[in-house]
């Protein structure tokens, strides 16, 4: 019984290996905020959400499969919560049935397995009832298959058969086993056989020749004898106990898979609820093949910043179709980093089948999202700063491929502008030629100007907006790079602001986001 709510054709493995840069991604893009919101305190949901986000689907069809299921989930959240609840209950009640500390004998394993299996049967019946009651409401291919499977595999007849077998396994009438002679003529290969009803009538018993056989009776006070008998019984039930215990694990496995795959959608429901509460908009993105390059959005905002701020935030509108280089320049504290983050975040959200924080979003899938942000000074002092940045760049280079997306944030600024620009230029040129998409936030005028002067259609220049009076709108507008980043504004704000607290608050939110 497969769940197949994450992929049409395979299980979702929330323990598979993540891309090596996943920690950089998480911290650079502020993913923790998103995951925490999805989890709502459920660590398991968080782990699944984390994994799904970082794993990234590259096939628009796979993305569509999840989007359809997610639409069902958003429309019938209460049913989804019930499904999740059943899986959680199965796992928790299973865990409560201890094996016992010391006596791992087939007898105790069998007894425990019987008990757990009875719980499972009860929950499977519950699952069946939900399916009967609600399956018609669901329209996605994933849920249709799922409910059809429940319907077919968990019929009345099947439940009856299972319950009968669980009865038999109590062995109220003793056991029948066969054996062979092993090393030293000790009995081995004990195999248990179904207890046979005594089918012979009294007449047959009288007339048929009796089978040869010998009976051993353990004397009443022979403790050693009874212990030996118990051990023999254990050996006899070993295979059956194992089979049932493994069956328990298999059924448990089904519940675990169900929990895992539903967990992702639980997280999406939670996030949706919060964003709706905040009054920000979400939409299902249109995922397109990587080539030709598409990137067009309206009202794209940084979801982690939105979650951290009380007030609704402004989104950006970008027409980036056909652009493989987006250079972002402009005022300090003008929303450049926020925009860069929103690009990375929404790309990851789209590529795990989620909705995105925008009014409209249409983009090509990327084969991997990578970040190259300025880092704190290396504490171990093994690398100089530029050395460290180039070292990380070299690590990235090991992993980049065609149609990857790289987000640079003020990279290669740890040297003078001319040299830094030249390094950056060489890197960017190489990436573009290898069909890697580049978003680059920089203050390096020489760098930005250089590209601007090329006047290529495949480039887009965005600038943080600054009004004449120095206030920021936190919006990006298309425009040529300027020679100043208005650092003076910032200086003034910090040193001359009457209410420094306000500034500090904003700064905090930005860092978090």
């Amino acid at each position, binding site marked *: *019984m497969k769940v197949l709510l994450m992929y049409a054709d395979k299980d979702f493995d929330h323990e598979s290996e993540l891309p090596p840069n996943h920690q950089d991604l998480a911290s650079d893009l502020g993913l923790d905020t998103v995951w925490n919101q999805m989890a709502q305190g459920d660590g398991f949901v968080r782990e699944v959400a984390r994994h799904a986000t970082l794993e990234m689907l590259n096939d628009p069809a796979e993305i569509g499969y999840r989007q359809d299921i997610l639409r069902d989930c958003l429309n019938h959240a209460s049913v989804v919560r019930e499904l999740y609840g059943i899986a959680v209950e199965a796992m928790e009640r299973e865990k409560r049935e201890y094996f016992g500390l010391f006596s791992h004998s087939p007898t105790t394993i069998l007894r425990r397995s019987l008990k757990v299996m009875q719980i499972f049967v009860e929950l499977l019946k519950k699952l069946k009832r939900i399916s009967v009651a609600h399956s018609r409401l669901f329209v996605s291919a994933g849920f249709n298959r799922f409910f059809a499977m429940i319907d077919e595999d968990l019929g009345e007849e099947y439940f009856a058969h299972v319950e009968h077998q669980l009865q038999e396994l109590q062995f109220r009438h003793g056991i029948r086993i066969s054996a062979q002679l092993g*090393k030293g003529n000790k009995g081995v290969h004990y195999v248990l056989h179904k207890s046979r009803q005594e089918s012979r009538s009294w007449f047959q018993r009288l007339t048929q020749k009796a089978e040869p056989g010998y009976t051993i*009776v353990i004397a009443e006070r022979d403790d*050693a004898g009874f212990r030996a008998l118990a051990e023999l019984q254990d050996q006899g039930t070993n295979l059956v106990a194992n089979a049932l215990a493994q069956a328990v694990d298999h059924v448990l496995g089904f519940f675990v898979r169900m929990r895992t795959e539903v967990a992702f959608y639980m997280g999406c429901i939670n996030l949706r609820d919060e964003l709706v509460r905040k009054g920000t908009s979400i939409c299902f993105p249109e995922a397109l093949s990587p080539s030709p390059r598409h990137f067009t959005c309206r009202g794209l905002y940084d979801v982690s910043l939105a979650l951290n701020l009380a007030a609704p935030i402004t989104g950006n509108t970008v027409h980036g179709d056909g652009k493989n280089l987006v250079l972002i320049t402009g005022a300090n504290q003008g929303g450049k980093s926020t925009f860069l983050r929103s690009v990375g975040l929404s790309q990851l959200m789209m590529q795990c089948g989620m909705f995105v924080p925008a009014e409209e979003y249409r983009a090509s899938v990327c084969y991997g999202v990578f970040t190259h942000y300025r880092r704190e000074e290396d504490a171990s002092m093994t690398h100089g700063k530029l050395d460290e940045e180039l070292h990380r760049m070299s690590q990235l280079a090991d992993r980049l491929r065609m149609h990857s997306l790289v987000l640079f944030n003020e990279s290669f600024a740890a040297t003078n502008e001319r040299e830094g620009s030249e390094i950056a230029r060489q890197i960017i040129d190489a990436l573009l030629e290898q069909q890697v998409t580049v978003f680059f936030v920089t203050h390096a005028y020489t760098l930005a100007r250089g590209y601007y002067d090329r006047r290529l259609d495949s480039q887009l220049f965005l600038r943080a907006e600054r009004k004449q009076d120095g206030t920021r709108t936190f919006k990006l507008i298309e425009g040529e790079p300027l020679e100043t980043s208005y650092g003076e504004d910032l200086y003034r704000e910090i040193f001359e602001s009457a209410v420094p607290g306000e500034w500090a608050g904003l700064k905090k939110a930005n860092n978090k986001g």
Partner: protein
Amino acid sequence: MSLFSILYPENYDRPASDPLQAPEFFSDLNLDQITQAITDRKASYHLNSVFYTPLNEVDPVRYRQEIMRDLENPELAGVFRSFAQSMRAMRERLAQLDKMYYPYQQKAWFLDAVELYGDAVVKLLQDLTSCQFTARGLALFQQYLDGYVGSDSFRALRSDTHRMKQELARVRYSLRIKGNRVDVRPYHEEPDYSQEVRQTFEKFSQGAVKSYLVRFPQGPDMNQLEGRILERVAQLFPDVFGNVDRYCVNHADYMDETLAVFDREIQFYLATLEFIEPLKQAGLPFCYPHLSSSRKAVSVQEAFDLALASKLTQEQASVVCNDVLLKDSERILVVTGPNQGGKTTFSRMVGQLHYLARLGCPVPGHSARLFLCDKILTHFEKEENTASLRGKLQDDLIRIKDIMSEATGDSLIILNEIFTSTSLKDASFLSYKILQQILERDALCVWVTFIDELASFNDKTVSVVGSVVPEQPALRTYKLVRKPADGLAYALAIAEKHRVTYRWLKERII
């Protein structure tokens, strides 16, 4: 006719009984350590006596050297190791058998032991046939083994064993357990119920899950219930178990004596090679010495004290090698030099070389020509024996007298710092007396002494001196070279290093 032996060639006059005591000089030369290190790993074979019994002719030494050389081929050594392993397993089974209570349990273990034995013997011959070797001893052994495996009695043993195992393996019975009753019945083909359970939940199955099979102790013991069931099973299958009874009577003495002896004796070679293997790995040279019973010239390149080297190699420390040379009429190596400079080690090394050579073992060194001496006689300085009423000098003299009365012209005498408990003048006098006696006998000798003059006594004495690095006299090289004894007081240098010279102590003790 005596049995074939892999240790002694045919017609060799081997000692009637195995010696239980190590020769007297064993501990002086640290040969006790070496022997223990070699034999400990094969304790059950009681190989010590082999190491206590040196060979006294050149040809038997070659007989062993040939075998040892062949066994340096790991493939061939592996053949005998795996045979030994099987034989050990067989003996373990036989040992188990004695502790058992139920006759048909014992008989099953006996059957197992015989099967192991038969398989091991056949495999040994097969493996041996596919190996290359040149030693006389091994060729003779192969010949013997070939004859044995082809013999009617061995063939019968094998086929009986095989048939018996098959018959027992076919026995199947069924048990019904209810309350305190166990019914033992014949078996009828029936499905395994666990499969049915598996099938019921098949639809949930996805990939492997962990096993919940409980491992029951597979010890040889049988409890009373098992024993009683076995008795009933024997009653259910009277033909099979009757055959078992007959088999055990017919094959009670299945083990071939020559093979039993061989199994032990081959361990001498394997154990020795296993012992020197890590030293070889560490880059230390070993060789098969050329032995002569007539020429007393001795020449070994880059030898070392095997006991010390074994210890140093374990500690991953480096080992210093030294040459030994006695040419033409030279007979006595007079060793002088700094304290802690390796003099005693050198004298031990010469003794070990001569002894190991007589065992047929490889010896430390790149190449070695050695004299097959008839005896090795040693006197190393000992702790004063307080129980003895005699003084130390007296003890020394008595011991030397014993040595001189035993020594022949073919003996090797090793003296280490004797006559220390008397004046230099006395010691010189006594030493000259002894030196003359040794020279008269024309025996070989290594003499560690502080009396430099002994070294230049005549053309039969050779001076060997511990060397130093000129710039750092306190640094010990443990290298001993042939050169005149120069009497330098190296002890001062060591004192300087430890800041206990006059000047230092004046300064330090205020």
